[in-house]
């Protein structure tokens, strides 16, 4: 049974330079307790898609489609309804732990604020629960840290605080937007380990937005690959790594450093501007397999093997195949 069902999500921004289509007819679902990896280059619409679900985008954004969660269409819900869901049932962890905490308050009060608002806990109960949460995200001596200001904590520690805050109300879905990008590698491993632990212990469904396939391989159950605002491939994590179908995914995998694999393969060219959605495969200009068809029609998603979807006219794991 799926927890979140997104159908035909489109996001466009009206800017001074014209309309930018950031997300184009994105559909996906998320099951209870599942870890979904969302992968793509910067600017491919991964963050925007998920921020649009909780209506966290600026007013210049126009969002279309539907997103069913718990019997409610998030995109059509009232602001009051949405405030009850934000942080309570769907929680966000942002990329920048250094600036996502309010410098004027102790971290304990900031977590406590969420608890008191959503769960109506008393001051004392909120504090006790906050200490438990800090302990859950493996912050050493939580009784002391609870009374510290953000500037007294390191980056990894702050990201743990952000995760603790997100987990405060035991949400159904935790959306982590590049949670490890701003951190160094050893700290990253710790945070990912924590994510796995959270899923196992609390059964929280996690959406992990990242541009790092290594991170996805490590924790995700299923992966959605996005390119230029569209979903180009979706598969269980093992299938994706064993038999990537879309040439973009193949390219991404070629760009992951592996011991002994020699020079890294790059994908030539750049992500297209999203000002105009091409009536063609958006990846065609960079694709070694592109032909007449790719340049004239938008490929539909189709199932090439069970639960493995790809939007390409020439799918296949081998770059040379086509």
């Amino acid at each position, binding site marked *: 049974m799926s927890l979140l069902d997104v159908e035909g999500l489109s996001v466009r921004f009206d800017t001074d330079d014209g309309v930018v289509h950031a997300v184009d007819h994105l559909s996906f679902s998320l099951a209870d307790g599942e870890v979904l990896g969302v992968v793509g280059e910067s600017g491919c619409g991964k963050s925007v898609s998920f921020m649009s679900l909780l209506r966290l985008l600026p007013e210049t954004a126009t969002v279309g489609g539907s997103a069913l969660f718990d019997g409610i269409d998030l995109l059509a819900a009232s602001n009051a309804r949405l405030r009850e869901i934000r942080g309570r049932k769907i929680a*966000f962890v942002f990329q920048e732990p250094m600036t996502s905490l309010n410098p004027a308050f102790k971290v304990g009060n900031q977590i406590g604020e969420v608890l008191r608002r959503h769960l109506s806990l008393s001051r004392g109960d909120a504090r006790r629960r906050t200490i438990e949460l800090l302990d859950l995200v493996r912050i050493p001596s939580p009784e002391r840290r609870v009374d510290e200001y953000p500037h007294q904590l390191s980056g990894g520690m702050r990201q743990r605080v952000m995760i603790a805050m997100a987990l405060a109300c035991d949400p159904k879905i935790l959306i982590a937007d590049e949670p490890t990008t701003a951190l160094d590698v050893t700290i990253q491993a710790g945070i990912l380990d924590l994510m796995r632990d959270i899923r196992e212990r609390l059964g929280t469904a996690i959406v992990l937005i990242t541009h790092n396939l290594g991170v996805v391989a490590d924790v995700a159950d299923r992966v959605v690959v996005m390119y230029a605002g569209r979903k180009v491939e979706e598969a269980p994590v093992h299938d994706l790594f064993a038999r990537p179908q879309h040439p973009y995914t193949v390219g991404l995998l070629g760009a992951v450093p592996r011991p002994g694999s020699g020079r890294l393969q790059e994908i030539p060219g750049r992500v297209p501007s999203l000002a105009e959605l091409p009536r063609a495969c958006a990846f065609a200009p960079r694709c070694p397999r592109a032909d007449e068809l790719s340049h004239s029609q938008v490929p539909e998603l189709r199932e090439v093997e069970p639960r493995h979807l790809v939007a390409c006219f020439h799918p296949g794991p081998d770059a040379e195949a086509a």
Partner: protein
Amino acid sequence: MINPRARRRRLLRKRFLRRPLAIVGLLVALTFVVCAIFAPLIAPYSASATDFNALLAHSSRHHPLGTDELGRDVLSRILWGARASIEAGVFSTLLAMAVAVPIGIVAGYYRGWIDAVIARLTDVLLAFPFLIVAVGLAAILGPSLTNATIALGIGAAPALIRVARGEALALREEDYVRAAVANGASDARILVRHVLPNMLSTLIVQTTVAIPAAIIGEAVLSFLGLGVQPPTPSWGVMLADAQSYLSQAPRLAVYPGIAIFLCSLSFNLLGDGLRDILDPRTTR
């Protein structure tokens, strides 16, 4: 383990003590406040008591700063005069804050047409010099200390609106504001908990600019007859009275002048010090 609250307090004290000018500012400003509150107890004479045996007297044991043209003790009048200055300075600034901060925050946080309207109106008001606005308002409201305070407060508001709006504009883009929205915080809570506290250090600096400006403004209004009415003492009134005797007794203008200078300077110094130590981003 040391209690972090106590540690922070000690830290702030230590930083403050390292700034001699701020300490001087604090002490002098406190002196003026104490004088204002306890004027009846401290002043050797009543502010309006005349001594016709000592008109325009030089300083002496009985009158440390001499007397004015009616034989009133200058020291006593300066001490009493601190009341008008401090009252006008503090209350007009509080009034300006109370008016300007909510307007500025709403304009800066919500943007849109409401911001456009508020920003343009503020610009129009700012085109007039502060004192012109204050003099005009005081003239309309009628001469009294209360009306002068209101006039100074409203006159100071546009500049503060602009500051609060600018801060809110910057703070609404902060990641922690976005994070608070994502956590389900209401607009009111975001404004009060996340936007306002983070502009406090800026507001404190503005306060310490506004208080001395209002102190000087009160003196100006009283000098022009739009503020405190004689015989109630005020430094501005004393300056006005001293005009006729400048050649015979220039000290009558010098002493209240020094009082105005010291009083406004002390608040400025205190403000600079507070700004340096209160900024939470530099608490380490």
